[in-house]
């Protein structure tokens, strides 16, 4: 991972979040939410701090992090590419979009590129079936796509 997200500044933020929550009942979930927000992920180094300060076993924290899909162990790339695999998008060929993205960026579904630029995920229906097949890159939405559109979109973010 090229980006250093485990900065002293982020850990200082985490400490104050833990401090604010540690005396409440069930502090783990709110602290994890904040941690995900601060670091963009909750890797072992972050979980260990939470485990020690909240006195919750690391295995329990790891269990919660792996249970909820909103929590991640590794940070997402700068650009999160989400391709809808809902029914409408799927029958309109969104799998082919995924294959092309993987071919161009080297990133397979659920992973992040080595340079930290792109992450790729397959999503369920995002409610834009009229635009099927749909993909998003961060907050940008692209609809009614064909495979030939993909290289141009990727190029915009490759910079």
């Amino acid at each position, binding site marked *: 991972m090229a980006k250093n997200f485990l900065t002293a500044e982020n850990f200082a933020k985490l400490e104050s979040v833990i401090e604010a929550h540690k005396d409440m009942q069930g502090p783990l979930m709110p602290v994890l939410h904040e941690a995900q927000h601060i670091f963009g992920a909750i890797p072992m180094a972050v979980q260990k701090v939470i485990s020690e300060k909240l006195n919750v076993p*690391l295995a329990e*924290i*790891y269990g919660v992090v792996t249970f909820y899909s909103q929590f991640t162990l590794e940070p997402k790339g700068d650009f999160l590419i989400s391709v809808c695999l809902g029914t409408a998008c799927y029958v309109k060929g969104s799998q082919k979009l995924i294959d092309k993205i993987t071919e161009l960026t080297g990133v397979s579904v659920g992973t992040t590129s080595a340079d930290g630029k792109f992450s790729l995920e397959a999503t369920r229906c995002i409610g834009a079936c009229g635009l099927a097949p749909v993909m998003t890159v961060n907050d940008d939405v692209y609809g009614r796509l064909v495979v030939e559109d993909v290289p141009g979109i990727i190029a915009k973010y490759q910079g």
Partner: protein
Amino acid sequence: MKNVTITINGNQYAVPSDLTVLEAARTVGIDIPTLCFLKDINEVGACRVCVVEVEGARALQASCVLPVREGMVVKTNNQRVRNARKTTVELILANHNRECTTCVRSKNCELQSVSEELGIRDIRYTGAKREGKYDNFSHSIVRDSSKCILCGRCVSACKNVQGIGILDFVNRGFETTVGPAFEVSMKDAPCIYCGQCMVVCPVGALTEKPAIDKVWDALEDPKKHVIVQSAPAVRAALGEEFGYPIGTNVTGKLASALRNLGFDKIFDTNWAADVTIMEEGTELLGRLQNGGKLPMITSCSPGWVRFIEFNYPDLLDHLSSCKSPQNMFGALAKSYYAEKNNIDPKDIFVVSVMPCTSKKSEIERPELAVEGVRDVDVSITTRELARMIKEARMEFDKLEDGTFDPFMGDYSGAGVIFGATGGVMEAAIRTVADVLTGEDLENVDYTAVRGVEGIKEATVNIAGKDIKVAVAHNTKNAAIILDKIRAGEADYHFVEIMACPGGCVNGGGQPIQPASVRNVIDIRAERAKALYSEDAALTVRKSHKNPEIKRLYDEYLGEPNSHKAHDLLHTHYYAREKYPVQD
């Protein structure tokens, strides 16, 4: 307690209002099958094997977590209930590695039992199976998730009983497994290897790392002089593997079985327990007289030692420097015994039979060797010894009562009770009291430190001096004592801590009793009785009165805590980091 009236299978019963439906049914002789349920440890209603039909409720209810209430009408055995139970168990079996014929838990498996009891003859489901993970990298524990049924007993035993929490549920839905954080090996987790997860596991998902083959190989090797030592708690439980009631003392048959297996010498860790008392008692007197670090805490239990190394490294100087009896025995077998019998220590092979799975890792600690020769070569559990006896086709119940060999097999009653919580403390007080008073005190029963209460405290007045002691068993209780010490609120002089609930008699290497037994019998207390009754029957009940101990010091070690004793019998500890982060 108020009673309520409930109807079970058409008959009315008055039952105490604080029972669950499962308990109420059992009190009136109606058995409801269970699988995940384990009294006081895992009462979560996860597996749905104990479902019953309750009038007015739409779905079937898990009886293990369903409180009784006035007027409740329950059916435990109609077609709907039987079918639901069968379907549930079939689904569990469909995702279970069913290599029962080669599984170490075959014939002592609660999944196998419930499947047989429910009459399952076919598994209709042939869908995907969760990918299993097999981890045998530690010296103590083998984790095979292909057999795990996600009952959660190990999670609870580790987190709630022991207060550690190495294992937990990971992932979600069909991908759910039970394992350590970040799915590291048990070798790399801050696990103390107490094995309490294994003795509650209903199946073969958590088992000891087997070492029997190394023992058979050594016994076949004509160049090796193979010595066996058996820990105090082994005799209190081995009989269970051969159908004896829990709490039967089988010392005599144990000695005969070991002899039949072909060991060159049959010795007893009890003897080494007596040595431990001499060394540890002297260390305590030294600390009391010279202003040493107090309280001093025992160091016999390797699970406990790992616990403090991982969790309270700042308190390590409270630990006695004494090696555990297992390793004292090994060190003396390869020095004292070797010298007296003119045997090269390198040719001596020491096997220990222990109620413990952490002992398997303890013997691998790098510092537990003298001049490159390991103190102990192989450590097997009580369960593994039972397997060897079965493999050797011995009829255990027909064995004559034998005796251990003299020299390192003679022991006092003090050595015997090491296997129960409070035993080391009592044994130590017996000797320390004689030393401080200069008398041979008649009363040796210090009952205040006996029993299965989590933390016991007592003040013993010896020769006009008050000695404050505490005894804790299981690491959750240990942590309470350590927190007090850390906060400067503990004024104890001496503390005994054992990692396992009840002490070694309930160690992770002991015979596994199913929930059906554990729900109704306190196996900790029953097994402890077997040790206290042997102690009471012995004429020598103080370690320092054991003639073989006197001989050891007269002819070899000199004084307790002598230079030689320190070289052979004392050790040191390390602060260990939990989950070191790798970059």
